[in-house]
């Protein structure tokens, strides 16, 4: 085992940790907020208030 072998194990470990962080937050968010809220984004909101496209 040399430095590069340790680096391989570290890369696997950090990847797994980041994956777990994402999955944990994903599940917590989905169980905290309703689906209506999470999917409430609508296209064109800025158009309604700022970008009128009037000449």
């Amino acid at each position, binding site marked *: 085992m040399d430095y590069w072998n340790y680096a*391989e194990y570290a890369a696997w470990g*950090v*990847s797994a940790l980041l994956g777990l962080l994402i999955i944990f937050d994903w599940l917590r968010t989905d169980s905290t*907020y309703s689906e209506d809220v999470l*999917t*409430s984004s609508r296209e064109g909101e*800025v158009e309604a208030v700022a*970008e009128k*496209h009037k000449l």
Partner: protein
Amino acid sequence: MAVAEAAGAVPHTERVSLLRVLGPAHVWALGVGIVLVGEYMGWNFAVGKGGAYAALVACWMAGLLYTCVAMIDSEVTSTVAAAGGQYAQAKHIVGPLMAFNVGLFLVFAYTMLEAGNAITVGFLVDTVAKMAGHEGVDQRPFIVLSIMFLAWLNYRGVLATLTFSLVITAFAFVAILVLFFAVQPWSADSPLRHAELITKELPYGWLGVLAAMHFGLWFYLGVEGTTQAAEEVRSPSRALPYGTMASMMTLAIAATLTWYICAGLMPWEYLGQAGVPLFDAARLTGSTLLMWLLGIGTLFATLASANGCINDASRAWFSLGRDHYLPAWFGAVHPKYRTPYRSIIFLVPVAMLFALQVPLDQVITFSILSGLLGYTFMPINMIMFRKKWPLDTIKRGYVHPMHPLPALVLIALCGLTYFAVFLGYGTQLIAMMTFYIVVSLWFHFWRYRFVKRSDQFTMPWPRPNGY
């Protein structure tokens, strides 16, 4: 809402949308960041196809193609400022079936490019390990780590993601400039030897120039991704044209300098198959400092590209979900980080699968083909946009000059590039076209029934001419 509240969910009455925090510099970072890796590696296969001068012709022809793309994109996106970029443009200007296809072109082009970048990170780690005297590094953990780290960054917020891209992209670009000044082209002591190294002007004739176009795209592939930031910039009509055109100018400079340095330091026979040509050029100068600079630049350019690809692919997938072209579940926005978090998560295993299972050249070819299909849509889109909504009907953030010349040039160059790709990867081209025909049939005969047709068209524009 009632079910969720009964289950202890937090009541929330406001809409959760993507966060408008980006400026022109972030748009520049997105455009240049995705592409600059092409200067560090990949473009040089054009030299192998047709020689050094063929690669230069391809570089400038592709530059012309992408200048048309940037001008067209800037005009339409400064008017259709929505996540999804060209997908949203197609939806408003051409129609749902075109939009569905364009959305998929975008997702495939960026996800495949992300996979290609992750493979490259593994290759770079292996190269460094070999230089340090260690043979046989397992590349897989580094491929997985690059995807996971950048997905996590994207998940946590767009401002941090693109600020990270801005820093590493600027570093990679400055590294090319430093190398150019270090070789002192104006000096008699310069190590550049173009006249001695380019022994044959066009070793495979003009057919070689045509074949080189395939990899000529490499100098600029992905710059059109700036449009994906449309819903997250503070001022779309200002930031998108500025950011996109500045990206194109930066890339034209970087591409030409890259060719000039590499063609003057390496014989074209070697350059045509080199893995990391700019890094090799730095090594040939004999400067350890330049070697480190360009080595880190190569890694940064690769990470910036993968980072931008995750950003862009997830916005396109999110937009498809939000309009019910795909399950609406993908159209969710994270209430705290304000990112399309489910789309980001969904595309992680897809990118990982391709990065770990498919060879680099195949992954890249799928990316190029999807990109090329997207570019073919743009001139059609532009001509229809000007016809349906002439300049005196709606205000644009930017009006591109000489219409319809850029659209016609773009469609001609796309035709030329299809032929170039067909010469090298005809089977993949046909397989890709078949795939898009099959999914189009699925969308037309099945999926479109779930789309809320009246909700799709969100722009407060007047009725189009002729309707």
